[in-house]
């Protein structure tokens, strides 16, 4: 069983792009770890502080539609990974970002707007946290004394990549 989870960082806006997640000027770094301080540096969102405690504590990001649009830079999933964030939940993803997440053995989970609205209702709860079970395809949102479990769809291929730990190991064994 592969599970992800922990404190949630809420980013309540559609079309959050890869330049906002990791600006191009840091693409000169050649190790993932060196990207760590620059997470979401250029994202302007009311109440959001890229260097704040909520960003540091986060293990899951929840956002809206078309998350990760723009550049092919895998530095975007990597900067999440080195900051301990291994899952992003959103209404939809840009193709390359979504695949990059699964290719790294992380999760990019799509949920319908109604489910996301319920999840966003926890955005002011200090104890907002989420647990994802990739095998069972469920995620449980908790906070403010409440808890609710949601089912999600994930392709068999993407699931296999997460369970294999990523595309390189999967492909090298198989092709």
């Amino acid at each position, binding site marked *: 069983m592969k599970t992800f989870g922990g404190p949630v960082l809420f980013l309540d806006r559609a079309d959050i792009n890869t330049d906002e997640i990791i600006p191009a000027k840091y*693409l*000169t770094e050649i190790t993932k770890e060196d990207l760590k301080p620059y997470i979401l540096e250029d994202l302007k969102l009311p109440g959001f502080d890229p260097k704040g405690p909520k960003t540091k504590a986060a293990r899951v990001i929840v956002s809206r*539609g078309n998350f990760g649009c723009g550049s092919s830079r895998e530095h975007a999933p990597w900067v999440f990974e080195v900051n301990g964030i291994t899952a992003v939940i959103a209404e939809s993803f840009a193709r390359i970002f979504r695949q990059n997440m699964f290719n790294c053995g992380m999760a990019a989970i799509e949920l319908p707007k109604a489910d996301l609205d319920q999840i966003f209702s926890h955005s002011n709860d200090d104890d907002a946290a989420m647990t994802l079970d990739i095998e069972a395809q469920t995620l449980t949102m908790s906070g403010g004394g409440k808890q609710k479990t949601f089912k999600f769809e994930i392709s068999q291929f993407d699931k296999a990549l997460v369970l294999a730990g990523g*595309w390189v190991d999967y492909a090298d064994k198989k092709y």
Partner: protein
Amino acid sequence: MGKTTAEKIFASHLVDEPFAGTKVLKLDVVMCHEITTPIAIADLMARGKDRVFSASNIKAVVDHVTPSKDTKTATQAKILRDWARRHNIKDFFDIGANGVCHALFPEKGFIRPGYTVIMGDSHTCTHGAFGAFAAGVGTTDLEVGILKGVCAFREPKTIRFNLNGTLPKGVYAKDAILHVIGLIGVNGATDRVMEFRGPVVDAMTMESRMTLCNMAIEAGGTSGICMPDMVTVDFLWPFIKDEYASKEAALAAFKEWCSDDDAVYDQVLNIDLSNLEPTITFGYKPDQVKPVSEIAGEAVDQVYIGSCTNGRLEDLRIAAQILKGKKIAPNVRGILSPATPHIYQEAMKEGLIDIFMDAGFCVTNPTCGACLGMSNGVLADGEVCASTTNRNFMGRMGKGGMVHLMSPATSAATAIEGKIADPRKYL
């Protein structure tokens, strides 16, 4: 039931279907640049798999920051250079021969109809102009591509865009694609191939078709695709003349890749461009577009002509036609980056570089430079750039900077006036 071009390419390149809806394809070309490839190389080395699936099907270029601007970018270039030497990758383009990847590789004749192409660069969709399936990927997909020559994709769905009518004077491929993105939105084609058809596309040069396909990713599209025709054959002829008895024979072979008349599309959109005005972006998303007349007069600090979208010879000719005999406004910095050394040389021979320099432009070497805020023309906080590039995200060309995307013609007119200007009065 007929097939689309993408479906034909998928069927002919299928290596495996590990799960329903997931297709693992054999790759014809894997392209590499120095920003996203060095980490793939480092990871392959760390895994003890410093191999390549084919030295001849891999093409590499140093283009994003060149000449290197500091130790880090010099190291990135060195990792790519050393790797290319180690694996005998002959099609490696270093300083003196390097240009913007999506302009350089087509110019070398590397892309053919029916090919599968990946690169760790989102604008790889450009190469669909040749009737190829060309997609941008991340570093891990690139790494597997380098190692195994395969890549996995979801089953392709295609949106067909019939671009009808004829483009009016002063309106170009860039205006057409900005208009299309404005219609369908920045995620209007996510997980879809954007097939561009109709009389407007038929009348376009390969350069214009590349501009069209280049921005498919800005609508979320996996690839843009144009149907191969005699324009495609003419462009590729110097590279294929030994493979086909005649241009007609090449055309017949290429036509096999065209979508069938009874192909099934996810969606078909009919768009008449006969009354399209020069179109530009006004916000921080590529779908925030307006006719230039609605925004004309807004001041800019910099005009940038170049990039994989609009740094080709055709683009330089259009801009030079407007700039000839004129000076750019004193409040504006004009930057021209011809996209490849060949384009640069041809532009010199035609006198275009003189026109740009006489007008007051700074002419830089071919590089991706300012487009993504990495080198050669980064903006200061609060500055505004009129640009022929493809992406206008907040801070794209430098933190706090604002970018308006537009055609080379609109950029040239804007440079002259020092504020956003309609190019039609200069034509």
